[in-house]
């Protein structure tokens, strides 16, 4: 049956190329666009995102492309400034979770035995909670703020990284060169730096891309619950929540929601493509 394997992977590779082309390029463009917004929200925005005016609940018009909210604030300016808040915070969540999960995953995979057992049971425990619920409990405990939201989301999302990195370490640990390196008396730090970490980078990148979208979504969820950055900060989830006060004023929530959707969708598409490209067997995310 080996004969069929070769051509089949070929066919699959071609499909992946097709998959990557238009959809993935669009996703890249969208994300790049948002990064530009993050960098230049200040002078892209027509108004001060916090400035209130008498012109409340103005529908989209030439003066206010996305309309105004219940305090007469310009929704477009708030959406643009929201990127400045949501995207860096999501990146911080991913970086933090990657750092915590990465280190614990390396320890679990490299040391094995008791350390592995303890860390893996810890991941099981965190997985026993739905993410948004645990994040809610943590932020509520420490008090709602941007920092605590980030902290809470790191706490709920590190286990995925730990498992994937541990898996990557275990797969190299099984290979001969690692034990050879050990026999040659190379110290564990050197082995980690030279063999283990470079080999964990691929899975880590795939996972981080997939999880970036998840981080944006969870952060928006926490803010929607009132547990994110404090008002009047223009956080997207909190802005959508404002729209719930009067659903007939659709523009108040539609535009920030679209912002969340486009960022998350772009991340998910890129994450999917990255998974196909680097590691078709990685069952990352959830």
């Amino acid at each position, binding site marked *: *049956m*080996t*004969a*069929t394997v*070769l*051509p*089949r992977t*070929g*066919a699959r*590779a*071609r499909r992946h*190329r097709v998959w990557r082309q238009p959809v993935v390029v669009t996703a890249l463009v969208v994300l790049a666009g948002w990064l530009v917004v993050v960098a230049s929200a200040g002078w892209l925005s027509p108004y001060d995102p916090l400035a209130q005016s008498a012109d409340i609940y103005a529908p989209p018009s030439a003066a206010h492309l996305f309309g105004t909210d219940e305090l007469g604030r310009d929704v477009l300016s708030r959406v643009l400034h929201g990127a400045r808040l949501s995207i860096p915070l999501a990146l911080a969540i991913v970086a933090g979770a990657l750092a915590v999960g990465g280190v614990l995953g390396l320890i679990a995979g490299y040391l094995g035995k008791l350390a592995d057992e303890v860390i893996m049971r810890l991941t099981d425990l965190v997985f026993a909670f739905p993410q948004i619920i645990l994040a809610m409990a943590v932020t509520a405990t420490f008090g709602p703020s941007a920092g605590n939201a980030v902290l809470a989301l790191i706490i709920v999302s590190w286990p995925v990284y730990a498992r994937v990195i541990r898996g990557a370490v275990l797969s190299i640990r099984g290979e001969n060169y690692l034990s050879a390196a050990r026999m040659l008396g190379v110290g564990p730090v050197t082995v980690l730096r030279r063999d283990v970490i470079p080999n964990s980078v691929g899975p880590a990148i795939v996972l981080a891309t997939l999880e970036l979208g998840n981080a944006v979504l969870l952060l928006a969820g926490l803010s929607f619950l009132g547990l994110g950055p404090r008002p009047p900060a223009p956080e997207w989830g909190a802005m959508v929540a404002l729209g719930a006060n009067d659903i007939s004023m659709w523009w108040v929530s539609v535009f920030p929601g679209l912002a969340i959707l486009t960022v998350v969708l772009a991340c998910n598409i890129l994450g999917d493509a990255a998974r196909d490209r680097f590691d078709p067997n990685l069952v990352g995310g959830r």
Partner: protein
Amino acid sequence: MSADPDTDELLAVENLAVRLPGPDGPVPVLEDVSLSVRRGEIVGIAGESGSGKSMTARTLLDLLPTGAEVSGTLRFDGAELDHRDRKAMHAVRGHGIAMVFQDPTAAMHPMLSVGRQLTEHMRVHLGLTRTQAKARAVELLEQVRLPDPEGALRSYPHQFSGGQLQRIAIASALAARPRLLIADEPTTALDVTVQAGILGVLDSLRSDFDLSVLFITHDLGVLASLASHTCVFQHGRVVESAPTADLLRSPEHPYTRALLAARTDPAEVP
């Protein structure tokens, strides 16, 4: 090996070429393959992995991946095999041509009972009732010399050893009374000690059922006592085709000689 107008002829493959879709356009996997099998005959196909032996078997049963391009003539039991005629192909599969796979543990469904897997195609092809099919399944399991056939029907594949599973797979292949059995390396995945048993079962079934067998292997030596005719495959082509005895005694193609030489080497071809 062009087909002679032999009334005994069961299967004739002429100028078969297969191309599979690849990343840079179609990739040829079989080119100009011709072979024939007479009724009651065992024909061997030898070659290394990737030489196109399994691909030939899959082409006969139309089990190629989607997008495969097939040209050439396939004639079975006096009629042309037309892959586009789905109904006819369904009738041929299992009923006309049956197949035994290399790894019996992978080729049996892990969650369906052995009884179910032995009888489901019997009922489709032969129109048997549940009781009739069950009785026949017991008979078949006896013929492949499996102990406790009744109990086996209620069991699941993981409860058997590889050798036992391969016997069950052979029984399943024969269940719908095929004329031709394709055995794709049926002993490769098995212990050396059980190989001989499987080969014995195959040979005795051939005479009992008046069955033709297309025996695919990478081990020319296995064919010596089994196949009357052997085709050697390399890179998707038939490089040599002759009566097995002649082929073993005086191999003409260098690749055949290499295969024979490899056989004396205890190391397995990967």
